[in-house]
């Protein structure tokens, strides 16, 4: 088990990577919220928003194939999560699969969930394809999220890797004692491993706290690189915002 996917995607070059991370986060939120605001059945606008993300990816030199390949798992999850709605939403029955009746309302809702969800997922994947985890935290800090949240996330990054190492060790220790068999022993074992990992994390946090104090910690995690939203970033965000708003309005008014 490892967390190397936390930042293995992030490209080092490309125009999007040079924009402040806060702008990338805001753009992602803008696209996701824009898509979510589309009414049921606004198929054209859903396609346009998806296209907008793909265009951004092209500007950022993120290959289309990469983007699509990384979007596949969450898209599949979305499809699976929405499948039940096909038969659960009441409406005109348009097809029968065994004992299940697919309704027109169900089809429209599932189609809309996919249509609204896809641009959001593409935008999210584009974000992680251009942004490393520490930069993401820096962006969130720039966006004035509570200090407690950004401090927790900033420290969680290193802790996660250390925790992953410890979990691997604990699992190996358990496996070497031949711990297998049924659900109950397995559950007990996992609870034991999780509890030990938690106790170790807490102990580590105390040692880290000492190390911070020894180096003059003042109580606030200060960041070395500030990348505030500059004029150019605001201008680009403005353009994107207007585009998204136009798409949403065209669907809402039309």
């Amino acid at each position, binding site marked *: 088990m490892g967390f190397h996917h936390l930042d293995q995607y992030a490209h080092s070059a490309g125009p999007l990577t040079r924009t402040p991370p806060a702008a990338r986060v805001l753009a992602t939120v803008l696209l996701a919220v824009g898509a979510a605001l589309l009414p049921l059945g606004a198929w054209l606008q859903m396609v346009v928003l998806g296209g907008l993300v793909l265009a951004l990816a092209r500007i950022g030199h993120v290959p289309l194939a990469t983007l699509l390949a990384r979007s596949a798992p969450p898209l599949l999850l979305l499809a699976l999560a929405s499948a039940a709605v096909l038969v659960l939403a009441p409406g005109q029955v348009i097809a029968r699969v065994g004992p299940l009746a697919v309704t027109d309302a169900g089809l429209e809702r599932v189609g809309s969930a996919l249509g609204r969800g896809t641009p959001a997922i593409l935008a999210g994947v584009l974000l992680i394809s251009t942004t490393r*985890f*520490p930069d993401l*935290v820096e962006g969130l800090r720039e966006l004035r999220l509570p200090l407690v949240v950004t401090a927790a996330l*900033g*420290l969680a*990054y*290193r*802790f996660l*890797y*250390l925790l992953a190492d410890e979990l691997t060790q604990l699992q190996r220790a358990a496996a070497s004692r031949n711990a297998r068999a049924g659900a109950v022993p397995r559950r007990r074992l996992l609870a034991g491993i999780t509890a030990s990992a938690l106790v170790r994390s807490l102990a*580590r946090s105390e*040692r*880290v706290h*000492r*190390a*911070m*104090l*020894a*180096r*003059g*910690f*003042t109580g606030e995690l*200060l*960041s*070395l*690189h*500030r990348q505030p939203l500059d004029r150019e970033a605001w201008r680009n965000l403005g353009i994107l915002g207007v585009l998204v708003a136009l798409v949403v309005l065209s669907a809402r008014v039309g």
Partner: protein
Amino acid sequence: MLLELRDVSFAYPGGLRVLHDVSFGLGPGERVALLGANGAGKSTLLLHTNGLLLPTGGSVHVDGTVLAEETLRAARARVGLVFQSADDQLFLPTVLEDVAFAPLNAGQERGAAEALARATLAELGIETHADRAAHHLSGGERRLAALATVLVSRPPLLVLDEPTGDLDARGRSRVVSLLRRRGEAILLATHDLHVAAALCPRCLVLDAGRLVYDGDTSTLLADASLLEELALTCPL
């Protein structure tokens, strides 16, 4: 005296007494090894040197000022403590940020803190790792990075807890020769008698929380029966 302990005793809140009337002094540029078996109180003593623990009896003086809540900040700038596990010391996403942590918290400007951090990494020969995460470094490099996080503040006294504990022969030699070249005073807790001999002319031995030897390292190491008596060597 850079650091002076006067009759320092310490007991944990549960009542467990770990240090008994420990007294010694350490001057500028002096290098002293702290030896002793596991549980002798070495780590606890080190935590007293910059006030992470305050003694329950006696007093600790840094530059002649007694350590108390209100003098901690100044003392911590004078005494650089490097912990046993490098991972506990590298808690930020990149090595550079970890090294810049102390200058930033001391109120330095971002640009100055970064320049200082980069210069310190260059001194240790690991400047190419500045923007990497600590978990992508080798054990030896991580140890040097942890050292850099403390050296960046230029403390006149370095307090090191097992700085070569998890290193192979080459890594160990790299750390020792680096420390020997520098001018800081050093208090070094270790199990490694070779490292102690190579680096520190003077050594202290702790046994069950009491200071039982304070003298030449070479004299101690030449006396096989004394070493065995102090449980510093054991026949295999």
